[in-house]
Structures are given as structure tokens and as C-alpha cells.
């Protein structure tokens, strides 16, 4: 037993060290600076601070509910339906994720001028339907169908079978996805800024303005604390709701789970089609703005961009690869540690597991500007002065991707039937062998899906990249932002053409990754 624990501690070292150096330390340092300036308690006692917190949580909660409602039918279609065009659905759902906020913001404003809070909620949901569809769909496609069929055979309606058999088994994945979506929405900056017009403000936009425009570090520190508090509270609530819901499931290979829908299932398919239509509306609005002239402009070098659109696309692909590889290493190791801690006997181990689980999610709940400014005051203490190194881009991106990977891999790893593992152990397999022979093959599909999702997040990532991208070496999102902020019709058309290029690149990447899915035929 002691040997296993030591091994576990070693495996945990990498994710923990990564989080401490690239997240906890910078954030603590910059918040500490704010405290040094004084005035934090004054901001904390202001009523307006708590109004901001209230609005932040409320809009994030509303967006989360909407994302789950819209995401579930799509998850069902992705997991259970065998119809032509499903691969296309898989791709379309992911496209919103890579689109730069500023362009989506413009599209939403064009479709719905002055929509206020409602358009903030809709736009947040637009970005996050994919999280629900992919996270829940990932687990759903592995669920053994026979339990449901048994319920049906005993006379349950398809809705009753879903509610009493399928839904409980999906709950951990739904909560996982909700937690991620909630965190994404509570820190979404561009959406609130553009669609809120300055009138609607959240903790995130206020932290940004205080840090970037006013250099009011104590105000920003106070608001960061409130944000952290809100996020931790949400994570704890999520964890409590999730607890005990996780049961060992009989996981099946996905091919077996998908078939032609029948009866009332067509209603769900219909709902998914409606959601897809809604997702496609802003996308189509963007497509319609790209012109031949824009594409021609992108193909040449010079002008506002200095590089061609293709160069920017290639750079996006390469940066995203680095970030994904890094995030997979850290994220998968972290998931393995979390699962082992949960299985380990004793409350101490379980407590450590829950703490680590929550800590891994925090990067999604802390302002990017806090982390970014934190880097400036800490990372020069490391050898090589990473503050201005191109290496920092994949590091910062990985921070966003890791929680995503953990949330996608963990529910699957946790539902691996413990009896299978015990049987293997009884037959003499060591922990590594058990993982290789039992957990890995069952989780392989989710691992690839998580990597694909992480890759897509990195492709669309703008905050960290813009903060470090060199001129002459922009990624596509950075190029789009540069083009859209210049006057002139051609620049505008080039920006939209670059958006289309970004969508095409994303679609191509997603298609390739979906093809690469390893078979789990033995199970």
C-alpha cells in the first residue's frame, strides 16, 4: 500500500507543480500587491461590489441552464443516433468555440441590437453548448443500453426509462459540464463588454478595467477575492450535488450504443435540429460577410496583417498543438491521481482528492488579466525570464484546457467498474498494468475527444495569445482582432474571411481527430 501511495505522490507532482508555478503563485503575488496598497476592505464593504457579484453569478447561472438545455438533445444525437450527417453535427457544434468574441459579439448585435442581458446569456450559451454536448455525449455513448431496454420491457415509457435509468447515470457528466460552463460564463469578458455596452458589468469586466486602465490593484484584488469566493462556492455546491451520484457503470463501446432513432426519440432529434439551427444563425451571419476580396486580401502579405492568412493559420495549428500536448500530460495525470485518491481508503485521501479536484478548476474561475499581470511580477524569478518567452503562450493556454480535459476524462475513469480492476489485481497485475489494461482502453475514446476539444479551445484562444503574440507571428484569432480594429472595408472583409478560414481549419481538425478515434472493440 505504501508503495502505491508513493507512486501516486510522484504522479501528482507534475500537475500540482504546474498549477502552483503557473497559476497559484502569480495570482497570489498580484492579489498580494493589491493588499499592500490598502483599501481592499473599503471595496469589500461597498454595496456595488456585491451587486456586481450578484449579477455575475446570476448571468452565469442562467447561461449554464440554457447551455445544458440546448446541449442535452445534441449530446443525445451525438451519442445515440445513427443517421447520416452526425459527423457534421459533431463539427458544427464545436465551431462557436473557436470564434473570437469580438466577431460573435458583432454578429449578435447585428441580429439583435440592444438585446441587453438576454443577448449576454444567449451569447454565453452559444459558446458553451459544445461543452455540454461533448462532455455528456462522451459518457452517454459508452452507457450500456440494456438497462434502459429492460425498463422499457417492464412497461416504462421511453421518458420514464430516460428519467429513472439514463439520467441518473448521466448526472456526473452533466454536473461536470455545468461546472465548466458556469466558470467560463462567470469569467466571460468580451461577451459582457460588447453586448452589455458598459451598462451591464460583471466582476470580470470590472477587474479588467481596474487592472488594465486604472492600475487600481487594490480594487482589482478585492474584486478578485469576491470572484474567487463565488467560484469556490459554486464548485463546492457542484461537488455536493455530484457526490454519491457516481456509480460504477457498465461501459460499452460506442458503436453499439448508436442506432436509428425510433418513436418519441425523433422529438429529441427535432430539438437538436432546432438548437443547431440557432447555432448556425450567427455563423451564417459571419459567413455572409466574407467576400472574395477579403480572401484575396488574406492570401497576400503586407498591409495591416504583414503575414498571409495561411501563415496565421499554420501558426495557430502549431501553438494549439503545443498547448494540447502539455495540457494532456498534466490533465490526464491529474485525472489518474484524482480517481486513485477517490478509491483510496481513508477520509484524508478523499479530502485531498476533492481539494485537488476543485483546485484544478480554479484557472477557469480566475480572471485572465489577474493571471497575466501576475506572470509579470513573478516569472522573472524563474531561470530564463519566461515573461516574454513564446513558451508562455502554450503554458497559459494549457491552464484553460486542463480543467476541460479533467472534466471530460474523469467521469469516464470514475465509472470504470471497480470489480474489473479488483479482478485484474487479484490475478497479479500491478497498478500500472491495471491502468493500461482496464482503465486506458475504456477511457481511450474520451481521451482523444478531450484532446480534440482542448485543441479547439487552444485554436480559438485569444487572451493569453494576444498578450504574447509577436507582430509578424499572429495566430488567426489575433489576426482577426487586428483586422477588425482597423477602418476600411477591405480590412473588415479580410477579418470575416479570416473567421471563415478559422472555421474551416477547426472543422478539418475536428474531422481528423474524430477519425483518429481508437477502437475499443475488445470491450
Amino acid at each position, binding site marked *: 500500500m505504501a508503495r502505491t501511495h508513493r507512486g501516486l505522490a510522484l504522479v501528482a507532482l507534475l500537475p500540482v507543480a504546474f498549477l502552483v508555478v503557473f497559476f497559484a503563485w502569480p495570482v497570489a503575488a498580484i492579489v498580494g500587491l493589491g493588499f499592500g496598497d490598502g483599501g481592499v476592505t473599503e471595496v469589500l464593504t461597498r454595496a456595488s461590489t456585491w451587486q456586481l457579484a450578484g449579477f455575475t453569478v446570476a448571468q452565469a447561472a442562467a447561461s449554464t441552464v440554457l447551455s445544458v438545455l440546448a446541449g442535452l438533445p445534441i449530446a443525445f444525437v451525438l451519442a445515440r443516433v445513427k443517421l447520416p450527417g452526425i459527423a457534421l453535427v459533431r463539427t458544427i457544434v464545436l465551431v462557436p468555440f473557436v470564434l473570437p468574441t469580438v466577431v460573435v459579439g458583432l454578429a449578435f448585435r447585428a441580429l439583435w441590437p440592444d438585446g441587453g442581458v438576454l443577448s449576454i446569456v444567449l451569447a454565453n450559451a452559444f459558446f458553451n453548448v459544445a461543452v455540454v454536448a461533448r462532455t455528456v455525449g462522451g459518457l452517454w455513448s459508452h452507457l450500456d443500453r440494456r438497462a434502459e431496454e429492460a425498463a422499457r420491457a417492464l412497461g416504462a415509457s421511453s421518458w420514464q426509462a430516460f428519467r429513472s435509468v439514463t439520467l441518473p447515470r448521466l448526472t456526473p457528466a452533466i454536473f461536470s459540464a455545468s461546472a465548466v460552463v458556469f466558470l467560463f460564463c462567470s469569467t466571460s469578458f468580451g461577451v459582457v463588454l460588447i453586448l452589455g455596452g458598459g451598462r451591464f458589468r460583471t466582476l470580470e469586466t470590472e477587474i479588467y478595467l481596474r487592472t488594465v486602465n486604472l492600475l487600481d490593484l487594490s480594487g482589482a484584488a478585492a474584486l478578485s477575492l469576491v470572484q474567487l469566493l463565488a467560484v469556490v462556492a459554486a464548485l463546492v455546491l457542484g461537488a455536493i450535488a455530484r457526490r454519491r451520484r457516481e456509480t460504477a457503470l457498465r461501459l460499452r463501446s460506442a458503436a453499439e450504443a448508436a442506432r436509428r432513432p425510433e418513436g418519441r426519440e425523433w422529438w429529441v432529434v427535432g430539438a437538436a435540429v432546432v438548437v443547431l439551427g440557432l447555432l448556425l444563425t450567427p455563423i451564417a451571419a459571419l459567413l455572409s460577410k466574407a467576400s472574395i476580396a477579403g480572401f484575396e486580401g488574406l492570401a497576400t502579405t503586407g498591409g495591416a496583417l504583414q503575414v498571409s492568412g495561411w501563415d496565421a493559420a499554420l501558426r495557430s495549428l502549431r501553438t494549439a498543438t503545443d498547448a494540447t500536448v502539455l495540457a494532456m500530460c498534466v490533465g490526464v495525470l491529474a485525472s489518474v491521481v484524482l480517481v486513485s485518491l477517490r478509491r483510496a481508503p481513508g477520509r484524508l485521501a478523499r479530502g485531498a482528492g476533492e481539494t485537488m479536484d476543485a483546485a484544478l478548476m480554479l484557472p477557469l474561475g480566475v480572471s485572465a488579466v489577474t493571471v497575466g499581470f501576475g506572470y509579470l511580477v513573478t516569472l522573472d524569478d524563474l531561470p530564463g525570464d519566461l515573461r516574454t518567452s513564446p513558451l508562455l503562450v502554450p503554458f497559459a493556454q494549457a491552464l484553460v484546457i486542463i480543467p476541460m480535459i479533467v472534466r471530460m476524462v474523469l467521469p469516464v475513469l470514475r465509472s470504470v467498474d471497480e470489480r474489473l480492476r479488483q479482478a485484474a489485481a487479484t490475478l497479479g497485475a500491478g497498478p500500472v498494468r491495471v491502468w493500461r489494461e482496464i482503465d486506458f482502453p475504456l477511457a481511450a475514446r474520451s481521451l*482523444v475527444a478531450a484532446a480534440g476539444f482542448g485543441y479547439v479551445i487552444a485554436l480559438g484562444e485569444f487572451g493569453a495569445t494576444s498578450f504574447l503574440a509577436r507582430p509578424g507571428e499572429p495566430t488567426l484569432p489575433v489576426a482577426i482582432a487586428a483586422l477588425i480594429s482597423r477602418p476600411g472595408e477591405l480590412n473588415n472583409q479580410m477579418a470575416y474571411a479570416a473567421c471563415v478560414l478559422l472555421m474551416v481549419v477547426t472543422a478539418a481538425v475536428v474531422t481528423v481527430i474524430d477519425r483518429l478515434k481508437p477502437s475499443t472493440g475488445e470491450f
Partner: protein
Amino acid sequence: MTRTVRAVAALSAAGVLLAGCTLSGSEEPADDVTTIKLVTHDSFAAPQEILDAFQQQSGIRIEVLKEGDAGALTNKLVLTKASPIADVAFGVDSTFATRALSEGVFEPYTSPEADRGPQRYAIDPEHRLSAVDVGDVCVNIDTGWFAEKGLPEPKTFDDLADPQYKDLLVVANPATSSPGLAFLLGTVAKYGPQGWSEYWGKLKTNGVKAVSSWEIAYNQEFSGSSGKGPRPLVVSYASSPAAELGEDGKPRTKALLDTCFRQVEYAGLLTGGKQADKAGRVVDFLLSQQFQSTVAENMYVYPSREGVELPASWTQAAPQPPKPASLPGEEIQANRERWIEQWRGLIEG
């Protein structure tokens, strides 16, 4: 099982290879070349050829780092003053310069090029900052719209509050947009610290619309650009009309030159740099004829140097305002947050 392992192994191998080529992608400079780090804002753009030519002729390779907009850049410089992230900074503008100067971010350096024009915009008796370019934020109008409606074009701040121009102006929120802030400062310069809020009260009565960013105001609300929005008056730059020439080569928009507020962008040596002499050469380069002749086309601003030829479309469509407003940096620094809060109360409240 073996298929699984093989697929994943192949995938990770491909990933590692790709990652490797990115991470080792930056080429090693030759031995006789010194690298000087230039930290700047997101809008920095310069043709690679002139950077290469400078390297050829001086042996100095300029490594450019972008750190957000002018405000973010300034604040990052203040935060890192004990351990600067670069040797030279460019892009701190007149609305933020006081903060950087009072925090001791820059050290004195007088460029031999400064008396060719940049001196006109000097802000600091110790010569810690050299003016590189000048941008003017002015109201832009869609001339075709006014011609079509048979309405005379507005000219001044007062005109904008005139009821015949009701519901025509769109501005950007000064809390979230730097041209928005510049326009607010322009009204403060015009009507004084007491009178400006009254003026904005009139603008509000006259139906001014405030949006969060220049991108929305210009690309979506303004009728004179590609968005073909509903409003023919927008806060933008004096240089914007140069980008809006029609098929016939004639400008379709123009800037109201009596509504302009000037923003000057400065470069300087960061305090504590180890290569001060080479860093000074980079500042000289930014003020040189060679670099200055590219700023209009690449950054949509006017060169600070005298006698630099502007692109043809600029001389035709984007003349520089003769008497733009400005405010002392200390006054901006002392009041920025209060003015923005007051503005929010007036316009959003």
C-alpha cells in the same frame, strides 16, 4: 488493445514532433548581432523589410513584444519597473505618460533625431520620452448621407447638440475604449472641467448613443463604413477617411477637424537597461525618416517628424487637424477615473 496503443502512440508522436518544431522555431541570431527588446502595444505594425534593413546597417535586431493597448502597456511597465521586460518601450501615449513618468519607468535620452519635429510634442523636460507619432480622435461624418438628406454638415461640438442632428451620433464608452476616452477629454478641453457635463447632458437629450468599443461604433452603427449602420456621425480618427475611399477614389467620409483631441505616442529607454547605447539607437530608428514614412500606412497615425511624405489618399482624405485640443497629462491623471464615473452616471444612469 494494440491498435489503441498504436493509434495513441502515433498521435502523441505526431504531437511531440509538431510541438518540437514550434518551440525550437525561433532562429538563433548571428554572433555579431545584438538583440534589443522593444515592448509596444497591439497596434504596432512595421514592414519587416525596414526592420531587416535596420539590422543590416546597425547590427541591432529588434525583437518586438506586444503587451495590450496603451493603458495595459503603461501599467505593465509600471509593474515591472524593478525588472524591465524590455530595453525600449514604444506606445505610451499622452493620456498615460504622466503615470509612467511619475513612476520612474523611463530614463533620460535625447535623440539626435528629436529636433526634426518630435521636439514639438515634448512632454518631459528631462527628455525621457520622444514623440514618435500623433493621432487625432475626431467625429467622422458620412458625407453622402448628409448630401442625400439635404442637411448641412455639422462642424463643431455645439452643432452635435443641435436638435437638427438628433439621434445621429454614436460614441464609444470612455470606460472601455481609448478613442471614447479621448473624445470625452476633448469635450473637457473645450467646455472646461465644469462645463463638460452640461454639454454631455445636451448630447444625451439629442439622442447620443454610447457603445462599448470603437469596433462596434464604427463597423456596426456608423453608416459610412462597411457596416452601413443607421448613424452618420461617429467618433473615430482624423485618419479614418483615408481608408474609406469610394470606387471613384473619392473620400466617402470626413473628419470634423474642430472636434479633435490629440494623442501623442512616445518611445523611451526603460530604466535600468544594460544596453542603453544600443537601445538609444532603436529610439533614433523610430524617429528616423525611414521608419516615420511607414507609420501612416501601417499604424494609421501621423508621423511626428517634419517633412515626411504622407500617402496620396491621406493628403486627399485625411488632412491633419490644424488646432486639435489637448489637456495637460497631470490633469488627466488626476481626474480620469472621476470623469469616467461622472460620464457613466450621466449617460448610462
